């Protein structure tokens, strides 16, 4: 009997453009495989793709919804990307987002300030909330060596359960009696971008932050240090870099940005904090960071791409009844795609049949 054998062998590093082509081809294969699941609903993959793109980009409404979706994903993606750069596996962006949202909602509800200042303070509260939320995981990792994958993950549940408790038992909205906080003051609301539906200032700020990250990543010694620490912390330490401190800062920043995403959801979209504030922006952020390989441009494109998929799938669900969780299947496969692409850069993968 002849059996297939997968051969993975080193090769000369691939030039970037080839790598990008491989990347795109693999994504397409992933999409085609996933979209087989639309067939039971009487839809062929290409029509599905067409409907998805139409729903997410084909109209002004769709496009603005895509951007609204992208705003938090850009921030969580950026945050996770910075942590992943130093190989701190922050899987807890979802929980950090909620804590950031909680703190900024508190500021938005209980404090009155003139508009720009109020926005600033509430944003800072979001940053602080996210940083506080990730801090225990960093501390446990650096002090006791506890694996951050587990602690950040479990902390998602802890924070979200606690916030749910707060909203159900201590901080109900007096107007609606829903488990959601009272509405924040107008002065803390992020301005909308006129003519683009619910699109808000958070998106612009996200773009600016990506720009700053781009400069740091390509030109500054901090970007260089983070990259080197991620590649080989021991060598970095021997080269005199302050490894623990850099990882600490990167991880803290990561949490803070996720917290900011939560704050902007409150300040820009819902104007209150709810249990279902995030449909998984934190997890999407992990995908975005992975897919974008922690590179600023990669993160930006990935955030856009992931938002298109999510809004597209939502619209597909509305128009054809195909369950939205199929988007998750595709997104999950994108992790494998990203992992494969990382490998392509220095390995060749072949299948041979042997007896």
């Amino acid at each position, binding site marked *: 009997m002849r059996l297939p054998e997968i051969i993975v062998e080193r090769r000369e590093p691939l030039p970037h453009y080839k790598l990008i082509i491989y990347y795109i081809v693999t994504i397409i294969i992933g999409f085609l495989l996933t979209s087989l699941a639309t067939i039971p609903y009487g839809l062929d993959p290409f029509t599905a793709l067409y409907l998805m793109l139409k729903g997410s980009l084909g109209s002004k409404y769709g496009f603005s919804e895509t951007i609204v979706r992208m705003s938090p994903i850009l921030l969580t993606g950026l945050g996770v990307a910075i942590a992943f750069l130093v190989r701190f596996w922050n899987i807890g962006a979802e929980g950090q987002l909620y804590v950031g949202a909680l703190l900024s909602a508190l500021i938005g509800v209980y404090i009155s300030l003139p508009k720009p200042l109020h926005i600033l303070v509430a944003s800072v509260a979001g940053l602080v909330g996210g940083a506080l939320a990730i801090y225990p995981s960093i501390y446990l990792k650096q002090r006791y060596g506890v694996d951050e994958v587990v602690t950040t993950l479990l902390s998602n549940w802890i924070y979200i359960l606690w916030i749910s408790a707060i909203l159900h038992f201590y901080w109900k909205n007096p107007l609606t009696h829903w488990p959601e906080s009272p509405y924040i003051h107008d002065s803390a609301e992020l301005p909308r971008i006129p003519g683009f539906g619910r699109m808000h200032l958070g998106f612009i700020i996200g773009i600016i932050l990506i720009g700053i990250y781009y400069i740091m990543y390509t*030109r500054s010694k901090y970007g260089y240090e983070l*990259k080197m620490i991620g*590649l*080989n912390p021991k*060598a970095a*330490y*021997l080269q005199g870099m*302050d490894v623990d401190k850099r990882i600490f800062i990167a991880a803290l920043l990561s949490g803070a940005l996720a917290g900011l995403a939560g704050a902007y959801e409150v300040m820009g979209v819902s104007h209150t904090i709810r249990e279902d504030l995030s449909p998984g922006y934190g997890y999407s952020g992990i995908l975005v960071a992975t897919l974008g390989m922690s590179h600023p441009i990669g993160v930006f494109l990935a955030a856009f791409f992931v938002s298109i998929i999510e809004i597209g799938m939502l619209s597909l669900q509305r128009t054809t009844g195909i369950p939205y969780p199929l988007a998750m299947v595709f997104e999950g496969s994108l992790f494998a795609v990203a992992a494969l692409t990382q490998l392509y850069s220095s390995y060749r993968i072949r299948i041979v049949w042997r007896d």
Partner: protein
Amino acid sequence: MKSHENIIEMHGIYKKFPGVVAVDNVDFNLIRGEIHSLLGENGAGKSTLMKILYGYYRPDRGRIFVDGREVRFRSPSDAIKYGIGMVFQHFNLVDSLTVLENIILGDDNLGFIPDYSSARKRVIEIINEYGFKLDPDTGVGYLSVGEKQRVEIIKLLYQNSRVMIFDEPTTVLTPAEKSTLFNFFYNVSNEDRSIIFITHKLEEAMNVSDRITVMKRGKVVATLKPEETDINELARLMVGRIEPYEIRRSSRRGKTILKINGLWVKDDLGRFRVKGASIEVREGEIVGIAGVAGNGQKELIEAIIGIRKVYKGSIYVFGEDITNMDPSNIFNKGVIIIPEDRNYEGLFMDASVYENLISRVYRESSNKLGFMDHDGLRKYALKLIDEYGIQTPDITIPVKALSGGNRQRVVLAREFSYNEDRKKVIIAVYPSRGLDIKATNFVRTLLMREREKGLGILLVSDDLDEVFELSDRILVMNDGVIIREFEGGRVSEEELGLAISGVK
């Protein structure tokens, strides 16, 4: 039967790795009951050839015959069935299992629920027959290097190997252990088993073999009997024409640079590994530390460069106490390290050559806001590449794509060029391990050049020849202390060997 005199025949074996033909159309044969040395410098293709024979690698082309019958091995288990066994250069033992478990791991005859008692009986028989001192129920993680090698040998005997391949087994052994191993070779070859002994040491090949096959750059260049040749001819066959580097001793020794006083250092498990060692290195000299690995050298070095805590005692550089400072401060005091494991301690393997070359200087070339001067740095990197002869198509390719010799050049270029005027003492740990002769000579010449500039060099190596040839003074380290000191060039290799084995 004449045709079966050759227990192994390999014909036209060819194996290519990305970027290098490791084995190039090689013919090799092994006679029943002989000790056959496979001689060649690092990278000649010896290990690859033998891994092919052992079924570990698949050749791209070529045929293998065992007892005159053609075989096609898919994995080592096939080779083991034909009575071929191999001890790899780096031991292949599972530390978390016991000696016995390691040995029976591949035994197909043992049922699903292993019959430990009968296996243990056989292992003990083997241990007694060959006079190995070993308890089959100890965890392998607790064994010394010599003991681990014995476990590997027992594996072969347990498998009943008729062909035993040893890949550079002597590098990690004390002279005493070495002669025990050679005696073992004689004994088993008298039992009609054959030995393939891989080495790059000419004398060893001359002394133990019935025949010697010399490999160079993937090809077999000759197969000879020791009595028909001599060391010089072997050397010429093995390396071809290479400028020998000139061995020189220190011309002037100056003040004491590095002074270590009664140092005590623990290992990761909290056991003392350095137990009151005192060492002095002066300007313009190379001080070699000889000794079997695992006698505290690693902990000593790590303490000097600041990545391991000093428990007691102190370390001075030019009279300044650097004990327990952090690594970047110690480096700033002028202590340079060429780390033992260049791939994982010295280099960022996935980063580019450029990023690797600038990891010392990037701070100085950054402005207050932290922006790096990439243009200046690029020029600097190109200068180093030129000066140190680093062969790379481009500075943006990952350093892992370079050969071992070029990687070491990257490390040396980076460490030696930074802060020329502050540099005072170099700690060189196994600086030429795994390199071919050309790269080795380059490294040694460079060390001597630095000595001429007046630097002090502390050289740690398990390669006795290296310590022997370069050092102005040789210290022998045993069980955490310096037990002997010799003046370089005034001691014979035998004398040194005895001292290392602990014979005073």
